[in-house]
């Protein structure tokens, strides 16, 4: 394998990390809640999508649309059931809730879809096995699709935040809850919208992950990497999430290709975390994050 090929794959994988990190960053920016359950939410949305599609009596696009609706409903439900009751509590409470949600959702998935060691096929678009050959370089179809979708979604996000009224409201909320409220931005509605958007993005990411490798109950672990990516990017920076995602993807693939053979494999799983630890030590607010001034 040549380095260019590895880098391209890294970019494609990294785009998915970036996409999940985007969901994570959106929630963090608007609500200041670090969503540890992000990985679990990706897993749940995609299992739900699988369940919806498996009903199988309607065309694929309807299935996807329905799953999107389910995902949005999930986001709204999380916000209403678990986040809303904690308004006014110290920040640690909702964050702890997301940590507990991580387990709860996993448990739920195991209960409903668990079959030990099993991996379900998931390929509603029929692209899992496909590959594009460009000269020497081989690009797998789901990965390529994921890359493109990610770029499109980031682009849409950028437009949404720049021009849409709700987008502007979200940015205002992200900056300062009090100011946003005093200017008439419906902060609680923004919270709900952000969760819905995050679960929707989770669904897209999960859909691509599923098309890559099928469904299995370890998918949630990608959330850990996404958190690392979000932190590297600076937690409150949307472009940071994308850049950090791509960067981590490439570095991880390179590490997998060139270091793993010497140490017996598995480095790819922790490499983003190691990068994160190093970066966070030297730049506590990530690569693109905003430093805050402390006052007494």
């Amino acid at each position, binding site marked *: 394998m040549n380095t260019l090929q590895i880098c391209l794959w890294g970019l494609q994988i990294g785009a998915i990390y970036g996409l999940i990190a985007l969901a994570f960053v959106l929630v963090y920016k608007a609500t200041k809640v670090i969503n540890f359950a992000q990985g679990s939410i990706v897993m749940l949305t995609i299992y739900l999508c699988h369940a919806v599609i498996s009903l199988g009596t309607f065309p694929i696009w309807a299935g996807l649309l329905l799953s999107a609706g389910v995902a949005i409903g999930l986001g709204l439900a999380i916000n209403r059931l678990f986040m809303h009751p904690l308004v*006014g509590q110290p920040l640690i409470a909702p964050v702890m809730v997301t940590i507990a949600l991580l387990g709860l959702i996993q448990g739920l998935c195991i209960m409903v879809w668990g079959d030990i060691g099993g991996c379900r096929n998931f390929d509603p678009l029929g692209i899992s096995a496909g590959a594009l050959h460009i000269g020497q370089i081989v690009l797998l179809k789901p990965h390529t699709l994921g890359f493109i979708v990610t770029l499109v979604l980031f682009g849409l996000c950028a437009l949404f935040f720049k021009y849409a*009224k709700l987008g*502007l*409201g979200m*940015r*205002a909320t992200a*900056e*300062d*809850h*009090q*100011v*946003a*409220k*005093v*200017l*008439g*931005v*419906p*902060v609680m509605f923004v919270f709900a919208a952000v969760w819905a958007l995050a679960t929707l993005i989770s669904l897209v990411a999960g859909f691509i992950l599923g098309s890559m490798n099928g469904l299995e109950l370890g998918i949630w672990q990608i959330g850990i990497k996404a958190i690392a990516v979000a932190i590297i990017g600076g937690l409150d920076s949307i472009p940071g999430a994308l850049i950090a995602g791509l960067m981590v993807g490439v570095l991880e693939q390179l590490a997998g290709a060139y270091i793993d053979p010497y140490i017996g494999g598995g480095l790819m799983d922790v490499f983003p975390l190691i990068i994160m630890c190093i970066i966070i030590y030297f730049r506590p607010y990530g690569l693109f994050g*905003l430093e805050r001034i402390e006052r007494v």
Partner: protein
Amino acid sequence: MLAINNIEVKYSDIILVLRGVSLEVPDEEIVSLMGNNGAGKTTTLKAISGMLATELGKVTEGSIMFNGKRIENGDAEVTVGLGIAQVMEGRRTLEHLTVEENLRVGGYKVSGDAKKNLERVYGYFPRLRDVRNSTAGYCSGGEQQMLVIGRGLMARPTLMLLDEPSLGLAPLLVEEIFGILKSINQGAKTALLLVEQNALAALSLANYGYVMENGRVVLDGAAEKLKNNEDIKEFYLGLNEVGKRKSYREVKHYRRRKRWLG
């Protein structure tokens, strides 16, 4: 237009901040609210705008009427829609948004032509037009103050609550901003409730003034009258005549011991 009737405000159900405050803001007038740190001026404004809830505060007694509607313990988002805009203390711009985006957020509740609304604000603050595309956080203090006032104006309020607009600004800038406030009051027919430490500046602008201390209104009157009132000086500088008040040095030790025994 605005009538506060004997309100009491508590934070977290225990800390009593306002103990029976009453004040009035008539249509199209400028009213100034003065007093020391911690006197309860900002809390009064928050009680009006409905921002108390974000700090676990609550109006527990009394009422706040705005154009005949009770608005105490209301939701800030709704209050804005009624036509009350609060400009918070400390030039709280949305730092990473541009000046124009800041203004657009200010007009969140207003439907209709945003362009025209923006132009109107730029009319009052020509300086903001020049920096419309720069990031708000990098603007100078004076521009930021203009920005937050302009942002409040975007909601097309009939009553603006201004919290210490002169804080930390150089005297010349204060004069400029107060000049603009005057023209807003006259041009847009907006009533202003102005919280200020800078008493003389505030009184030169306002028609009427209230002085607060320890969560109460202790003095009020027409601006002209207050300006010449010796008490104002005392509130701000403790320049009272000797012998009028007991010195803090003379408070005897037994004063507290007495309480201890009793």
